[in-house]
């Protein structure tokens, strides 16, 4: 793998010198087309599709605390048109210039005990920055892993693999349809990116030429403008980092897994439950808040969060559930994440009235 990458890198550099342009140029035309291309390859995001090796002008990134998506592995990339930069925004996703793309591939390993071997690519989601806003589309990979095809109506894909403890792991993985994309990515009437916020990107990434803070790297490579010094930039912790503050870990998890809907401008605005990282109103955060439209999602419990009492908290009931109509988030998972449930239980048990 490493060898072939090196070879390809050299070859790429050679091609670049010869032609004066990258051999695998990203297609601005495909990104900005009225109707999305039918095949993922038409964008030119990857030098090597199957290996998820980005083309020139496409930069991989990660976020500190990711959304749980049925344990899927995720490979994230960003493309900002050459000579342009995203504008730094303190608390929201950066403002990307027209022609930018955010690319995320979801994949499962044949065996979670060796999660970097025999990885099967399932879908690649793209967010494309058009003049009139973001467009969201999903491409589903073929069996041979040579190409991914546009799926407007979404899809269910059977996943059969083996989990960390060697047990069989099988799910009907859900590829979202266009409206479901908006189910999470809607802010007011607009589609917005969720991951690339300063607080999520403020962490290190192992680039091919060494590990660097992502925000610094983006600034240095001209992809990001207007960023304040790192010392003035908030970072959410990795929720699994047991050395980090418990409150910050729980709030980071809620921010990423819930707050895309549960915020004042989001699809769940009518619930009055707001779980954004910066939310300071304890009642809005769910503490001793009664539900409004929970139905059977209440689990016969009276409050979203009852301090000191995880078993009396609706939030735990719904995060722990896998039943449609009860489970939260509503989209993007068919499984519960027991580790996250444990973290939230611990957090609620330490809260005071």
């Amino acid at each position, binding site marked *: 793998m490493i060898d072939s990458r090196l070879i390809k890198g050299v070859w790429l550099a050679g091609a670049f010198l010869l032609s004066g342009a990258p051999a695998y140029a990203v297609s601005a035309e495909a990104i900005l087309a009225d109707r999305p291309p039918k095949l993922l390859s038409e964008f030119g995001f990857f030098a090597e599709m199957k290996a998820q090796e980005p083309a020139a002008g496409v930069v991989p990134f990660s976020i500190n605390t990711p959304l749980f998506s049925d344990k899927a592995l995720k490979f994230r990339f960003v493309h900002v048109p050459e000579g342009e930069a995203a504008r730094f925004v303190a608390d929201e996703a950066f403002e990307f210039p027209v022609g930018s793309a955010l690319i995320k591939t979801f994949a499962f390993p044949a065996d979670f005990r060796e999660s970097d071997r025999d990885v099967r690519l399932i879908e690649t989601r793209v967010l494309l920055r058009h003049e009139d806003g973001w467009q969201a589309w999903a491409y589903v990979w073929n069996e041979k892993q040579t190409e991914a095809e546009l799926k407007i109506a979404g899809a269910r894909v059977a996943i059969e693999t083996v989990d960390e403890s060697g047990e069989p792991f099988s799910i009907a993985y859900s590829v979202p349809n266009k409206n479901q994309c908006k189910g999470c990515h809607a802010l007011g009437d607009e589609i917005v990116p969720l991951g690339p916020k300063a607080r999520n990107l403020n962490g290190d990434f192992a680039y091919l030429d060494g590990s660097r803070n992502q925000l610094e790297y983006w600034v240095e490579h001209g992809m990001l403008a207007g960023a304040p010094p790192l010392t003035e930039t908030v970072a959410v912790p990795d929720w699994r980092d047991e050395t980090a503050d418990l409150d910050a870990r729980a709030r980071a998890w809620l921010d990423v897994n819930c707050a895309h809907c549960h915020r004042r401008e989001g699809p769940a605005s*009518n619930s009055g439950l707001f779980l954004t990282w910066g939310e300071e109103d304890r009642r809005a955060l769910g503490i001793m808040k009664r539900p409004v439209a929970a139905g059977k999602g209440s689990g*016969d419990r009276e409050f979203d969060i009852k301090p000191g009492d995880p078993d009396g908290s609706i939030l735990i009931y719904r995060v722990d559930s896998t039943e449609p109509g009860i489970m939260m988030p509503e989209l993007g998972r068919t499984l519960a994440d027991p580790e996250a449930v444990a973290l939230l239980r611990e957090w609620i048990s330490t809260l005071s009235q």
Partner: protein
Amino acid sequence: MAHSPGLWQAGSFRRAAASLAALVVFTGIAGAAEHRVEPGEGANERLIEALILAEPGDTVTIAAGRYELTDGLSLDVDEVTVRGEGTDRTVLSFKGQTGAGEGLLVTSDKVVLADFAVEDTKGDGIKSKGSDQITFRNLRVEWTRGPHEENGAYGVYPVSSKNVLIDGVTVRGAADAGIYVGQSEDIVVRNSVAEYNVAGIEIENSYRADVYGNRAAHNTGGILVFDLPDLPVQGGHDIRVFDNEIVDNDTPNFAPKGNIVAIVPKGMGVMVMANRNVHVFNNRFDGNGTAHVLIAAYPNEYDDDSYMFVPRGVYIHGNEYGEGGFEPDGEVGKIITDVIGEPVPDIVWDGVTRIPEYFSWVSAENRIYIEEDEGTSFANLKMISQMLLPWGWWPSTDIAAHAGSLPEPAPVQLPQDGGA
């Protein structure tokens, strides 16, 4: 599982056709296309796709037949009509649903949903969020096993919406409210039937609603007008409930605990909780075992300075009352009968006012007014006196103390219904 090239091309072709037609001035119908979805193989995906690829002005027709759907549907395109071929002929069954919080979610404006049925969704039936000019016409939403606490919460569920028309729908079996309008403005609910739900029709934290010509029967409670704290929209006001048949609401409460409707006793006709300027008139009440009309304050603790927990300005008049109050149910029934005994009067007010008002007066526009035929029974439970003067208070049955009236709000006018 491949996407349908037919629809795809139809869309592109139509746009080309539309731009051609644009050369001809005033050809109003040029852009409108009809997409017809038939039952059978891949119907779920074809429906999802048709709703995504529809363009403003289009109609998506769901042909008669039974559709066994596994995923929720959603519509996010303005000015689309989704039409079935009758509520008994076009049936969308979500019995096998494995995802989504509702059967059909609408997030766009100027949408008409008509002539189909939605059955057995895992969560809510048909929801609109943030829609302007949303019409639900001649629909049926039903949980076919009947009342069950694991049924979805709401049948027809517009929320945070404007200009809402609900006309001729039937909802059965919702574990919260059959027809629920929340945090919305300018609402008409008419000619509809709500049966065997916990709440038949509920108007909550909403502004300007006309609820008329409906039948609310065999629910736990018939029609609820509520205002709740800790929500982005509160201070519900200007609600008219008239010409409805609110009878035999006799289904035991099956709402999961924690939901506000879980407090509603079996046999409630109309319940007004908090809210301002609510008019209840010309309705027919019969067979409601707890009480035909209950006017009450929000019963739970809250911590929200902007919330008004007592009803302000309620006018009850010209209703017809049959037998009622013969089987008071639950905690609320007990609170009432502990004070007033049985049978419970036709109209009950908990008598809760704010403490400063208790010691002075309640201004005219905030009072409770009742003008009913002679023989209509009434009780003011004087719950505030009960709390402040536990040694010397008694309830009042003096209906004449509430003589008077309030100016009626203007009828709700909806742009999609010939209004402004």
